[in-house]
């Protein structure tokens, strides 16, 4: 699953990931590959990206809010 986390002037993460956990407005959600297309707003919190090959490898991003889009070819978070 291709994940892109971007600010208007900066790309924070762009690459393959196993799963993605985000603080959606309706509660925390984890997105795996082949998730159905979705658009949702995010609230402040931590976005966790788990690496593709090493599942224990995690990357954290503090966000203040944003929008998440899940497409067939990947996931994008605009902050």
């Amino acid at each position, binding site marked *: 699953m291709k994940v*892109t986390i*971007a*600010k*208007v*002037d*900066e*790309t924070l993460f*762009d690459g393959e990931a196993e799963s993605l956990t985000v603080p*959606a*407005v*309706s509660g925390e959600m984890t997105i795996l590959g082949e998730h*159905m*297309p*979705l*658009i*949702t*707003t995010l609230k402040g919190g931590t976005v966790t990206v788990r690496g593709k090959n090493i599942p224990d490898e995690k990357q954290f991003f503090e966000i203040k*809010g*944003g*929008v998440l*889009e899940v*497409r*067939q*070819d990947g996931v*994008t978070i*605009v902050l």
Partner: protein
Amino acid sequence: MAGLKIIKTKIRSIEKTQTVTKAMEAVSAAKMRKAQLRAIHGRAYARAAVSILSRVSGSQEMQNHPLVATRPVVKALYIVITSDKGLAGALNSAVLRGTTADIAASGLSHENISIIAVGRKAHDFFTTRGFTVEASHRNTDEISSELIREIVDEAADRYALGAVDTVKIAYQNFISTFEQRPTLRTVFPLSLGELSRVVGDIVPAKGVFSNLHKEGSQPHTYTIEPSAEEILDTIIPKLASIFVYHALLESQASEHSARMVSMKSASDKAAEMEHALTLKFNKARQAVITREVSEITGGMEAMAG
């Protein structure tokens, strides 16, 4: 001999000027490439944001959103982006001319126009002509997210409150190193078509980055949570910041390439002048030698006679 010395001094000063213009040319070339690269990197964000908007754009909420709804234009706000510094050919005057032409075409009087100036040239131009300049920002090489937010917040607030009925942004669009075009885009009321054009403009028509035009496919059905309205509230200010960010980047790429081109022609002209003056110097030197030789031979003839 005095004439020779003057020419020599001129040649030296031209050589020095040429060194400076050559250095400025190189610096501008590097900065132009950097601005282009940043614009390319910003595409992922711009494309994602536009694609999200296009999912919710058909909805009723979209038509009624305070930043999307259109109304008759009585007051207009222009965000005008120019450079801080000169020596960039017709860059700034083209943007300023485009803006004044648009103001004239809209038929609004001076009191109904307000300006947010980015870059010293825009500030000076509109202040001396008696327009209301709401805010002035510097146009520095580093584009900070604070600057973008400040401009967007100011414009969005004024539009949402009804203080202005349209917000337009004027900048120089980078098409290729040798071609930049003054461009005017409507930020508010926000429209998908205008936004797609901005995103399309990010990839220059010619040059190294022009082969990035092909785009991927888009899916069809989306689940939207919690509601289209909430999504719009979050995404619309972000979309407006795309306008501002890319307008700033485009105008910087344009500024640097315009400066690069004008510095290149200055260097070429300096080389040409140096050549002409060297020729003149050699001729003058030759004339002095010829005169001295003829004086000597004349003197010898006189003594021999």
